[in-house]
Protein backbone atom coordinates (compact mmCIF):
# COMPACT_ATOMS: atom_id res chain seq x y z
CA UNK A 1 0.00 0.00 0.00
CA UNK A 2 1.15 3.52 -0.67
CA UNK A 3 0.76 6.11 2.06
CA UNK A 4 1.45 9.81 1.89
CA UNK A 5 2.47 12.31 4.52
CA UNK A 6 3.66 15.89 4.90
CA UNK A 7 6.47 17.15 7.09
CA UNK A 8 8.07 20.48 7.92
CA UNK A 9 11.35 21.59 9.36
CA UNK A 10 12.90 24.96 10.12
CA UNK A 11 16.50 25.72 10.89
CA UNK A 12 18.94 28.53 11.50
CA UNK A 13 22.59 28.62 10.62
CA UNK A 14 25.29 30.92 11.99
CA UNK A 15 27.78 32.01 9.34
CA UNK A 16 31.52 31.83 9.69
CA UNK A 17 34.23 30.35 11.90
CA UNK A 18 32.56 31.84 14.92
CA UNK A 19 33.36 32.08 18.62
CA UNK A 20 35.56 35.13 18.30
CA UNK A 21 38.08 33.48 15.98
CA UNK A 22 39.38 36.17 13.62
CA UNK A 23 37.33 35.54 10.51
CA UNK A 24 39.12 37.71 7.99
CA UNK A 25 38.87 38.12 4.25
CA UNK A 26 41.23 40.24 2.19
CA UNK A 27 40.87 41.38 -1.38
CA UNK A 28 42.56 43.65 -3.88
CA UNK A 29 40.90 45.67 -6.60
CA UNK A 30 43.02 46.97 -9.44
CA UNK A 31 42.34 49.16 -12.45
CA UNK A 32 43.81 47.69 -15.62
CA UNK A 33 45.12 49.60 -18.64
CA UNK A 34 42.09 48.43 -20.60
CA UNK A 35 39.72 49.99 -18.09
CA UNK A 36 38.72 46.65 -16.68
CA UNK A 37 38.80 45.96 -12.97
CA UNK A 38 40.77 43.00 -11.68
CA UNK A 39 39.91 41.47 -8.34
CA UNK A 40 42.63 39.47 -6.63
CA UNK A 41 41.33 37.30 -3.85
CA UNK A 42 42.18 33.87 -2.44
CA UNK A 43 38.57 32.70 -2.38
CA UNK A 44 37.91 29.33 -3.95
CA UNK A 45 35.30 28.52 -6.56
CA UNK A 46 34.28 25.03 -5.49
CA UNK A 47 31.25 25.04 -7.73
CA UNK A 48 29.07 27.10 -5.41
CA UNK A 49 29.40 30.13 -7.66
CA UNK A 50 31.79 32.27 -5.60
CA UNK A 51 33.53 33.67 -8.67
CA UNK A 52 30.25 34.83 -10.13
CA UNK A 53 28.69 36.18 -6.93
CA UNK A 54 31.87 38.00 -5.94
CA UNK A 55 32.30 39.39 -9.46
CA UNK A 56 28.74 40.68 -9.29
CA UNK A 57 29.49 42.48 -6.05
CA UNK A 58 32.56 44.12 -7.60
CA UNK A 59 30.62 44.96 -10.76
CA UNK A 60 27.87 46.56 -8.71
CA UNK A 61 30.33 48.92 -7.05
CA UNK A 62 31.32 50.23 -10.48
CA UNK A 63 27.88 49.85 -12.07
CA UNK A 64 29.46 47.87 -14.84
CA UNK A 65 28.87 44.46 -16.29
CA UNK A 66 30.46 41.32 -14.91
CA UNK A 67 32.35 40.91 -18.20
CA UNK A 68 34.41 43.98 -17.23
CA UNK A 69 35.59 42.28 -14.05
CA UNK A 70 38.61 40.00 -14.17
CA UNK A 71 38.52 37.66 -11.24
CA UNK A 72 41.78 36.09 -10.11
CA UNK A 73 41.60 33.60 -7.26
CA UNK A 74 43.81 30.65 -8.16
CA UNK A 75 47.36 31.52 -7.16
CA UNK A 76 48.55 32.09 -3.59
CA UNK A 77 51.53 34.12 -4.77
CA UNK A 78 49.38 36.89 -6.20
CA UNK A 79 46.17 36.73 -4.19
CA UNK A 80 45.58 37.81 -0.59
CA UNK A 81 44.20 35.34 1.94
CA UNK A 82 40.41 35.33 1.96
CA UNK A 83 39.85 32.43 4.31
CA UNK A 84 38.31 29.15 3.47
CA UNK A 85 35.48 28.41 1.07
CA UNK A 86 33.39 27.01 3.89
CA UNK A 87 31.04 28.00 6.70
CA UNK A 88 28.84 29.74 4.09
CA UNK A 89 31.18 32.68 4.57
CA UNK A 90 32.45 33.66 1.13
CA UNK A 91 29.46 35.75 0.05
CA UNK A 92 29.29 37.52 3.39
CA UNK A 93 32.94 37.82 4.41
CA UNK A 94 34.77 37.95 1.13
CA UNK A 95 31.87 39.73 -0.53
CA UNK A 96 32.34 42.49 2.01
CA UNK A 97 36.12 42.55 1.55
CA UNK A 98 35.74 42.86 -2.21
CA UNK A 99 33.11 45.54 -1.86
CA UNK A 100 35.42 47.52 0.42
CA UNK A 101 38.41 47.08 -1.91
CA UNK A 102 36.33 48.05 -4.92
CA UNK A 103 34.89 51.09 -3.16
CA UNK A 104 38.37 52.18 -2.08
CA UNK A 105 39.54 51.88 -5.67
CA UNK A 106 36.48 53.71 -6.94
CA UNK A 107 37.11 56.63 -4.56
CA UNK A 108 40.71 56.77 -5.72
CA UNK A 109 39.57 56.82 -9.32
CA UNK A 110 37.11 59.58 -8.52
CA UNK A 111 39.99 61.59 -7.06
CA UNK A 112 41.87 61.25 -10.33
CA UNK A 113 38.73 62.13 -12.27
CA UNK A 114 38.06 65.25 -10.22
CA UNK A 115 41.57 66.46 -10.76
CA UNK A 116 41.53 65.71 -14.46
CA UNK A 117 38.10 67.18 -15.06
CA UNK A 118 38.81 70.19 -12.90
CA UNK A 119 35.79 69.70 -10.71
CA UNK A 120 35.33 71.28 -7.30
CA UNK A 121 34.00 68.29 -5.38
CA UNK A 122 32.64 64.76 -5.49
CA UNK A 123 29.07 65.97 -5.40
CA UNK A 124 26.89 64.87 -8.26
CA UNK A 125 29.33 62.41 -9.79
CA UNK A 126 28.24 59.12 -11.23
CA UNK A 127 30.25 55.97 -11.92
CA UNK A 128 28.70 53.83 -14.60
CA UNK A 129 29.63 51.61 -17.52
CA UNK A 130 33.32 52.34 -17.30
CA UNK A 131 33.04 56.12 -16.94
CA UNK A 132 33.03 58.71 -14.20
CA UNK A 133 30.94 61.73 -15.11
CA UNK A 134 28.86 64.59 -13.86
CA UNK A 135 25.24 63.49 -13.70
CA UNK A 136 23.90 66.88 -14.73
CA UNK A 137 26.32 67.20 -17.63
CA UNK A 138 27.39 63.72 -18.71
CA UNK A 139 29.79 65.06 -21.34
CA UNK A 140 31.95 66.13 -18.44
CA UNK A 141 33.44 62.75 -17.75
CA UNK A 142 36.36 60.42 -18.10
CA UNK A 143 36.57 56.75 -18.96
CA UNK A 144 38.27 54.15 -16.77
CA UNK A 145 40.72 53.55 -19.58
CA UNK A 146 41.72 57.20 -19.62
CA UNK A 147 42.16 57.14 -15.85
CA UNK A 148 44.39 54.10 -16.21
CA UNK A 149 46.43 55.88 -18.86
CA UNK A 150 46.75 58.98 -16.67
CA UNK A 151 48.17 57.11 -13.71
CA UNK A 152 50.35 55.02 -16.00
CA UNK A 153 52.77 52.70 -14.30
CA UNK A 154 51.56 53.43 -10.81
CA UNK A 155 48.58 51.11 -11.19
CA UNK A 156 45.60 52.05 -9.12
CA UNK A 157 45.34 49.17 -6.71
CA UNK A 158 43.49 49.17 -3.42
CA UNK A 159 42.95 46.60 -0.75
CA UNK A 160 39.91 45.78 1.30
CA UNK A 161 39.64 43.74 4.43
CA UNK A 162 36.66 42.52 6.37
CA UNK A 163 36.56 40.83 9.75
CA UNK A 164 33.31 39.35 10.96
CA UNK A 165 32.18 40.27 14.47
CA UNK A 166 31.70 37.39 16.88
CA UNK A 167 32.65 36.81 20.49
CA UNK A 168 34.11 33.92 22.35
CA UNK A 169 31.49 32.19 24.48
CA UNK A 170 31.79 31.83 28.20
CA UNK A 171 33.40 28.47 29.00
CA UNK A 172 30.94 27.54 31.72
CA UNK A 173 27.66 28.94 30.42
CA UNK A 174 28.16 29.19 26.69
CA UNK A 175 27.05 32.80 26.76
CA UNK A 176 28.11 35.06 23.97
CA UNK A 177 27.50 36.08 20.37
CA UNK A 178 29.19 33.16 18.61
CA UNK A 179 28.12 33.71 14.99
CA UNK A 180 26.74 36.42 12.75
CA UNK A 181 24.66 36.64 10.65
CA UNK A 182 22.16 33.83 11.00
CA UNK A 183 20.43 32.47 7.91
CA UNK A 184 17.05 30.74 8.05
CA UNK A 185 15.59 28.00 5.96
CA UNK A 186 12.30 26.12 6.01
CA UNK A 187 11.21 23.07 4.03
CA UNK A 188 7.84 21.44 3.51
CA UNK A 189 8.03 17.96 2.03
CA UNK A 190 5.48 15.35 1.00
CA UNK A 191 6.53 11.73 0.79
CA UNK A 192 4.95 8.55 -0.42
CA UNK A 193 5.85 5.36 1.41
CA UNK A 194 5.33 1.96 -0.18
CA UNK A 195 4.49 0.01 2.95
CA UNK A 196 4.95 -3.34 1.24
CA UNK A 197 8.64 -2.83 0.53
CA UNK A 198 9.66 0.15 2.68
CA UNK A 199 10.66 2.53 -0.09
CA UNK A 200 10.20 6.29 0.24
CA UNK A 201 9.65 8.73 -2.56
CA UNK A 202 9.58 12.50 -2.20
CA UNK A 203 6.70 13.71 -4.32
CA UNK A 204 6.51 17.39 -3.44
CA UNK A 205 8.78 19.87 -1.78
CA UNK A 206 8.92 23.55 -1.06
CA UNK A 207 11.82 25.58 0.27
CA UNK A 208 11.54 29.08 1.68
CA UNK A 209 15.05 30.42 1.89
CA UNK A 210 16.21 33.54 3.69
CA UNK A 211 18.91 35.07 1.50
CA UNK A 212 19.27 38.48 3.09
CA UNK A 213 19.44 39.72 -0.45
CA UNK A 214 19.61 37.38 -3.40
CA UNK A 215 22.68 38.23 -5.44
CA UNK A 216 22.07 35.72 -8.22
CA UNK A 217 18.67 33.99 -8.23
CA UNK A 218 19.68 31.16 -10.55
CA UNK A 219 22.71 30.33 -8.44
CA UNK A 220 20.64 30.35 -5.26
CA UNK A 221 18.12 28.03 -6.91
CA UNK A 222 20.99 25.73 -7.86
CA UNK A 223 22.21 25.73 -4.27
CA UNK A 224 18.72 24.83 -3.04
CA UNK A 225 18.35 21.94 -5.50
CA UNK A 226 21.82 20.69 -4.68
CA UNK A 227 21.25 21.14 -0.96
CA UNK A 228 18.02 19.24 -1.31
CA UNK A 229 19.77 16.34 -3.02
CA UNK A 230 22.37 16.17 -0.27
CA UNK A 231 19.69 16.32 2.43
CA UNK A 232 17.73 13.62 0.63
CA UNK A 233 20.79 11.40 0.53
CA UNK A 234 21.42 12.06 4.22
CA UNK A 235 17.84 11.17 5.10
CA UNK A 236 17.27 8.00 3.14
CA UNK A 237 20.34 6.72 1.28
CA UNK A 238 23.79 7.49 2.58
CA UNK A 239 25.81 5.49 5.04
CA UNK A 240 29.47 4.55 4.90
CA UNK A 241 28.65 1.36 6.79
CA UNK A 242 31.60 1.35 9.16
CA UNK A 243 32.71 -1.95 10.56
CA UNK A 244 35.61 -1.87 12.99
CA UNK A 245 36.85 1.31 11.45
CA UNK A 246 36.58 0.01 7.90
CA UNK A 247 34.41 1.84 5.39
CA UNK A 248 32.38 -0.92 3.75
CA UNK A 249 30.51 1.38 1.41
CA UNK A 250 33.59 2.85 -0.23
CA UNK A 251 32.47 3.17 -3.84
CA UNK A 252 29.58 4.55 -5.80
CA UNK A 253 28.01 1.11 -6.27
CA UNK A 254 27.26 0.87 -2.57
CA UNK A 255 27.59 4.41 -1.26
CA UNK A 256 24.36 5.61 -2.79
CA UNK A 257 23.79 9.26 -3.59
CA UNK A 258 20.61 10.42 -5.33
CA UNK A 259 20.37 10.07 -9.11
CA UNK A 260 18.30 12.32 -11.36
CA UNK A 261 15.42 9.89 -11.03
CA UNK A 262 15.40 10.08 -7.25
CA UNK A 263 15.38 13.85 -7.11
CA UNK A 264 12.02 15.68 -6.98
CA UNK A 265 11.20 19.11 -8.31
CA UNK A 266 11.67 21.74 -5.60
CA UNK A 267 9.56 24.87 -5.41
CA UNK A 268 11.69 27.74 -4.23
CA UNK A 269 10.67 30.90 -2.43
CA UNK A 270 13.28 33.54 -1.64
CA UNK A 271 12.67 35.56 1.46
CA UNK A 272 14.61 38.81 1.19
CA UNK A 273 15.25 40.79 4.32
CA UNK A 274 18.59 42.55 3.87
CA UNK A 275 21.25 42.18 6.52
CA UNK A 276 22.86 45.58 7.06
CA UNK A 277 26.34 44.16 7.61
CA UNK A 278 26.20 41.97 4.50
CA UNK A 279 27.33 43.07 1.05
CA UNK A 280 24.20 44.67 -0.40
CA UNK A 281 22.34 42.88 2.39
CA UNK A 282 23.36 39.36 1.35
CA UNK A 283 23.90 36.39 3.62
CA UNK A 284 25.48 33.00 2.95
CA UNK A 285 23.12 30.22 1.94
CA UNK A 286 25.32 27.30 0.83
CA UNK A 287 24.89 25.24 3.98
CA UNK A 288 21.50 26.46 5.28
CA UNK A 289 19.75 25.16 2.14
CA UNK A 290 20.51 21.55 3.01
CA UNK A 291 19.83 21.43 6.75
CA UNK A 292 16.04 21.22 6.99
CA UNK A 293 15.60 18.62 4.25
CA UNK A 294 16.32 15.45 6.23
CA UNK A 295 14.23 16.36 9.30
CA UNK A 296 11.31 17.43 7.10
CA UNK A 297 11.46 14.04 5.38
CA UNK A 298 11.51 12.28 8.76
CA UNK A 299 8.49 14.27 9.90
CA UNK A 300 6.71 13.45 6.65
CA UNK A 301 7.42 9.74 7.09
CA UNK A 302 5.84 9.93 10.52
CA UNK A 303 2.84 11.71 9.08
CA UNK A 304 2.50 9.00 6.45
CA UNK A 305 2.93 5.84 8.50
CA UNK A 306 2.99 6.87 12.15
CA UNK A 307 6.54 5.77 12.80
CA UNK A 308 9.29 7.98 14.22
CA UNK A 309 12.57 6.90 12.79
CA UNK A 310 15.28 8.29 15.02
CA UNK A 311 18.27 6.95 13.16
CA UNK A 312 19.22 8.01 9.65
CA UNK A 313 19.42 7.01 6.88
CA UNK A 314 15.91 5.57 6.66
CA UNK A 315 16.69 2.87 4.12
CA UNK A 316 13.86 0.54 3.01
CA UNK A 317 15.11 -2.24 5.28
CA UNK A 318 14.93 -0.09 8.41
CA UNK A 319 11.54 1.31 7.54
CA UNK A 320 10.00 -1.99 6.53
CA UNK A 321 11.15 -3.72 9.71
CA UNK A 322 9.75 -0.84 11.77
CA UNK A 323 6.46 -1.07 9.87
CA UNK A 324 6.23 -4.79 10.57
CA UNK A 325 7.03 -4.28 14.25
CA UNK A 326 4.28 -1.71 14.43
CA UNK A 327 1.87 -4.14 12.77
CA UNK A 328 2.73 -6.75 15.38
CA UNK A 329 2.03 -4.32 18.22
CA UNK A 330 -1.45 -3.58 16.94
Amino acid at each position, binding site marked *: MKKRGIGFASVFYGTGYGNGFPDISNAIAELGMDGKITIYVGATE*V*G*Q*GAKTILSQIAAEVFSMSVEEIIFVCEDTSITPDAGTAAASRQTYNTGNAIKIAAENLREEMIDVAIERLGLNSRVGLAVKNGRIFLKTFPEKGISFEEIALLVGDQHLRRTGSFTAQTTQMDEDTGEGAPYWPYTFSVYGIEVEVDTSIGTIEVIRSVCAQDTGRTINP*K*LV*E*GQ*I*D*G*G*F*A*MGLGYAIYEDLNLQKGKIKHN*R*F*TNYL*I*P*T*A*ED*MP*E*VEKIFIENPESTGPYGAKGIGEPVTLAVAPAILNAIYDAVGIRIKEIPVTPDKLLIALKEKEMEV
Partner: protein
Amino acid sequence: MKVIQLKVNGGVYKVDIEEDMRLLDVLRDKLRLTGTKEGCGEGECGACTVIMDGVSVNACMVMAFQAEGKEIITIEGIQRKDELHPIQRAFLEEGAVQCGFCTPGMILSAKALLDRNPSPSRKEIREGISGNLCRCTGYNQIITSVEKASQYLRREEEEK
Protein backbone atom coordinates in the same frame (compact mmCIF):
# COMPACT_ATOMS: atom_id res chain seq x y z
CA MET B 1 51.88 -2.94 -27.12
CA LYS B 2 49.53 -2.63 -29.99
CA VAL B 3 48.64 0.06 -32.47
CA ILE B 4 45.00 0.90 -32.95
CA GLN B 5 43.15 3.36 -35.07
CA LEU B 6 40.58 5.54 -33.36
CA LYS B 7 38.10 7.94 -34.86
CA VAL B 8 37.59 10.69 -32.36
CA ASN B 9 35.59 13.83 -33.02
CA GLY B 10 35.94 13.35 -36.75
CA GLY B 11 39.71 12.88 -36.70
CA VAL B 12 41.56 9.62 -37.18
CA TYR B 13 44.31 8.79 -34.75
CA LYS B 14 46.85 6.00 -34.71
CA VAL B 15 47.66 5.28 -31.11
CA ASP B 16 50.07 2.97 -29.34
CA ILE B 17 48.20 1.26 -26.60
CA GLU B 18 48.92 -1.26 -23.96
CA GLU B 19 46.51 -4.17 -24.05
CA ASP B 20 45.04 -3.35 -20.66
CA MET B 21 44.23 0.28 -21.41
CA ARG B 22 40.69 1.49 -21.33
CA LEU B 23 39.23 3.87 -23.86
CA LEU B 24 39.24 6.47 -21.08
CA ASP B 25 43.01 6.14 -20.64
CA VAL B 26 43.62 6.58 -24.34
CA LEU B 27 41.42 9.65 -24.57
CA ARG B 28 42.94 11.33 -21.54
CA ASP B 29 46.55 10.21 -21.41
CA LYS B 30 47.31 9.59 -25.08
CA LEU B 31 45.12 12.09 -26.90
CA ARG B 32 45.02 14.56 -23.98
CA LEU B 33 41.30 14.99 -24.42
CA THR B 34 40.90 15.65 -20.73
CA GLY B 35 37.33 16.89 -20.96
CA THR B 36 36.32 13.28 -20.38
CA LYS B 37 36.60 12.77 -16.62
CA GLU B 38 37.13 9.78 -14.39
CA GLY B 39 34.99 9.83 -11.27
CA CYS B 40 34.74 6.21 -10.19
CA GLY B 41 36.32 3.81 -12.68
CA GLU B 42 33.44 1.39 -12.56
CA GLY B 43 30.66 2.73 -14.72
CA GLU B 44 28.74 4.13 -11.83
CA CYS B 45 29.09 7.92 -12.11
CA GLY B 46 29.01 8.65 -15.83
CA ALA B 47 31.67 11.39 -15.68
CA CYS B 48 33.51 9.59 -18.49
CA THR B 49 30.48 9.32 -20.77
CA VAL B 50 31.29 9.55 -24.48
CA ILE B 51 29.25 8.70 -27.52
CA MET B 52 30.46 5.64 -29.39
CA ASP B 53 28.82 4.71 -32.66
CA GLY B 54 25.82 6.81 -31.72
CA VAL B 55 25.19 5.55 -28.21
CA SER B 56 26.41 6.77 -24.85
CA VAL B 57 28.92 4.59 -23.05
CA ASN B 58 31.17 4.93 -20.05
CA ALA B 59 34.70 5.24 -21.41
CA CYS B 60 35.97 3.48 -18.28
CA MET B 61 33.93 0.41 -19.24
CA VAL B 62 35.33 0.03 -22.74
CA MET B 63 38.72 -1.51 -23.38
CA ALA B 64 40.75 0.58 -25.78
CA PHE B 65 41.11 -2.23 -28.29
CA GLN B 66 37.34 -2.63 -28.40
CA ALA B 67 36.98 0.94 -29.64
CA GLU B 68 39.09 0.41 -32.73
CA GLY B 69 37.37 1.76 -35.79
CA LYS B 70 34.41 3.16 -33.86
CA GLU B 71 33.23 6.74 -34.10
CA ILE B 72 33.78 8.45 -30.79
CA ILE B 73 32.50 11.85 -29.77
CA THR B 74 33.81 13.57 -26.66
CA ILE B 75 32.97 16.94 -25.16
CA GLU B 76 35.75 18.46 -27.26
CA GLY B 77 33.92 17.35 -30.38
CA ILE B 78 30.41 18.59 -29.88
CA GLN B 79 31.02 22.27 -30.41
CA ARG B 80 30.20 23.59 -33.87
CA LYS B 81 32.96 25.64 -35.49
CA ASP B 82 32.87 28.90 -33.55
CA GLU B 83 29.69 28.35 -31.75
CA LEU B 84 28.52 26.36 -28.78
CA HIS B 85 26.30 23.35 -29.29
CA PRO B 86 22.73 24.21 -28.26
CA ILE B 87 23.01 21.82 -25.32
CA GLN B 88 26.09 23.65 -24.10
CA ARG B 89 24.35 26.97 -24.55
CA ALA B 90 21.33 25.81 -22.57
CA PHE B 91 23.55 24.40 -19.80
CA LEU B 92 25.22 27.78 -19.50
CA GLU B 93 22.01 29.79 -19.53
CA GLU B 94 20.04 27.63 -17.13
CA GLY B 95 22.65 27.19 -14.42
CA ALA B 96 23.19 23.49 -15.06
CA VAL B 97 26.83 23.75 -14.09
CA GLN B 98 28.32 24.01 -10.65
CA CYS B 99 31.64 22.30 -10.00
CA GLY B 100 31.64 21.16 -13.60
CA PHE B 101 33.20 17.75 -13.15
CA CYS B 102 30.09 15.84 -14.21
CA THR B 103 29.24 18.38 -16.90
CA PRO B 104 30.99 16.94 -19.97
CA GLY B 105 29.54 13.48 -19.35
CA MET B 106 26.16 14.98 -18.60
CA ILE B 107 26.17 16.95 -21.85
CA LEU B 108 27.02 13.81 -23.83
CA SER B 109 24.24 11.85 -22.16
CA ALA B 110 21.88 14.70 -22.98
CA LYS B 111 23.05 14.61 -26.59
CA ALA B 112 22.58 10.86 -26.84
CA LEU B 113 19.08 11.30 -25.45
CA LEU B 114 18.09 14.18 -27.73
CA ASP B 115 19.54 12.43 -30.78
CA ARG B 116 17.01 9.65 -30.40
CA ASN B 117 14.20 11.53 -28.65
CA PRO B 118 14.04 15.17 -29.76
CA SER B 119 11.24 16.15 -27.36
CA PRO B 120 11.68 14.29 -24.11
CA SER B 121 9.49 14.92 -21.09
CA ARG B 122 11.15 15.89 -17.80
CA LYS B 123 10.66 12.31 -16.66
CA GLU B 124 12.36 10.97 -19.77
CA ILE B 125 15.21 13.43 -19.25
CA ARG B 126 15.64 12.21 -15.68
CA GLU B 127 15.89 8.68 -17.00
CA GLY B 128 18.21 9.73 -19.81
CA ILE B 129 20.74 11.27 -17.41
CA SER B 130 20.22 8.74 -14.62
CA GLY B 131 23.64 7.24 -15.31
CA ASN B 132 25.37 10.53 -14.59
CA LEU B 133 25.82 11.37 -10.95
CA CYS B 134 25.98 15.00 -9.93
CA ARG B 135 26.61 15.99 -6.34
CA CYS B 136 26.20 19.74 -6.73
CA THR B 137 23.12 20.67 -8.71
CA GLY B 138 20.36 18.34 -7.58
CA TYR B 139 19.80 17.85 -11.33
CA ASN B 140 16.77 20.12 -11.71
CA GLN B 141 18.54 22.90 -13.59
CA ILE B 142 20.22 20.28 -15.75
CA ILE B 143 16.81 18.91 -16.65
CA THR B 144 15.56 22.39 -17.46
CA SER B 145 18.63 22.89 -19.65
CA VAL B 146 17.97 19.71 -21.59
CA GLU B 147 14.37 20.82 -22.12
CA LYS B 148 15.62 24.15 -23.40
CA ALA B 149 18.23 22.51 -25.60
CA SER B 150 15.51 20.37 -27.09
CA GLN B 151 13.62 23.52 -28.03
CA TYR B 152 16.74 25.06 -29.56
CA LEU B 153 17.39 21.95 -31.60
CA ARG B 154 13.82 21.67 -32.83
CA ARG B 155 13.84 25.32 -33.82
CA GLU B 156 17.04 24.69 -35.75
CA GLU B 157 15.37 21.79 -37.53
CA GLU B 158 12.40 23.92 -38.47
CA GLU B 159 14.63 26.64 -39.82
CA LYS B 160 16.45 24.21 -42.07
